[in-house]
């Protein structure tokens, strides 16, 4: 596995250490929030352990992936909705 992984968050290129979560990549891209709530509030990660579902993002076109439970992979396209 390479030491760093290149992926994109909201179109922005991010280089990150292998083994990092998508959540870390979102933060490095400068995004504090991941999604919009049902009433339109912007929301960021809360529990960090896959329980709260606040860090949902779209990864490679698949919606509702928990950024905290997914590891970065080369070439990933991550979309936030925050």
């Amino acid at each position, binding site marked *: 596995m390479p030491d760093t992984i290149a992926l994109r968050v909201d179109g922005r290129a991010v280089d990150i250490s292998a083994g990092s979560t998508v959540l870390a990549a979102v933060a490095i891209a400068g995004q504090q929030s991941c999604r919009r709530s049902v009433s339109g509030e912007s929301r960021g990660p809360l529990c960090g352990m896959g329980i709260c579902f606040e860090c949902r993002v779209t990864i490679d076109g698949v919606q509702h992936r928990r950024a905290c*439970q997914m590891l970065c992979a080369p070439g990933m396209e991550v979309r936030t909705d925050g």
Partner: protein
Amino acid sequence: MAEHRGEVVVIGAGPAGIAAAERAAAYGRSVIVLDDNPEVGGQIWRGERERLTRGDVRWILGARVVDVVGERALLVEGTGGGAERVVFEHLVLATGARERFLPFPGWTLPGVTGAGGLQAMVKGGLPIEGKRVVIAGSGPLLLAVAAYLRGRGARIAYIAEQAPWRRLAGFSLHLLCSVEKLRQALALRVALAGVPYAASTWPLAAEGEGNLERAVLRTSRGTVRIGCDYLACGFGLVPNLELARLLNCDVRDGFVAVDEHQRTSCAGIFAAGEVTGIGGLDLSLLEGEIAGCAAAGHESDAHRLVAQRPAARRFASALAEAFALRGELKALPDAQTIVCRCEDVTYERLAEHTTSRSAKLHTRCGMGPCQGRVCGAAAEFLFGWTSDYARPPVFPTRIATLTAYHEVTT
């Protein structure tokens, strides 16, 4: 559909699960460990691969148990979204605990996180160097998190412990009973030298435009506002009971009921670690070992370990007593504070109801993707509501997994 068979299947790759797997594997049993997280270790050993047992254990990570299918099988959804069937002879539930979050004005702002939650994020690569962090809530976890984050370059602006000094002093006497715990406590003291720590202190609000900018804390000397990038809150731990409930294991006083060999009320199903009571690492490891022995059919070895348990349990009860949540925290939310973050249900809308069922039917509280994992523990504290059932799927699931029901049940 892929199918995995294990003589002993362990749910949860934290300390209790690892200990159970290691023991059962040492007796030559075929062992499978499943965990929702992408790495082993649970929360406390997150990502510490060296903890992996050298025994013959199959690790299936990034996999969620969705339902129980048939007498001795689980329907599991992997990270790739595919459905798998896991068949067991003996099952060990080591599903651990999550943090209890209490709602207060502003707690939905990005930047307000769990305490253990922020630690988990940083372990996953979240940059924390130079960030200002206020840590609030209750329990020794706050200190452990503060020390960890400081070690990674965070500036810990404040640690707010809701319990009063009087109780903390009583708790510290318990530390004197254990050389190891005393050593840990002293190490934390050194690691956190110079960091403001106050008892009888709790968050009143999180403020900021769009993102968190300030924590507002109630202290015994009045209200203080502290600028911060993160407000990391954790008001104790609550067990992850969903799977145990789905399996119909008896739950007593909020935890999975087990006998001295960690057997649940269901034949062939064991439980170990925080899901049977919040007791910390030592108790989790011990219970995991006992469950591993018993699940492998080596009752006499399990029995030899049982003698060590009373000391570990005493520490657990001292913990619960010292860090019990004070009633004033029930007044933290105002009418407009969101309690259910998935469905954006406010405190005032919930306060019209007398049971969680009524609230759920009328407001959708607890019906979003977290399925009440966050608001359930908050509502239990705020309103005294309890919920005693779990319905499948116990995790939000892809349609492809649901269609696999047909395959596994016919």
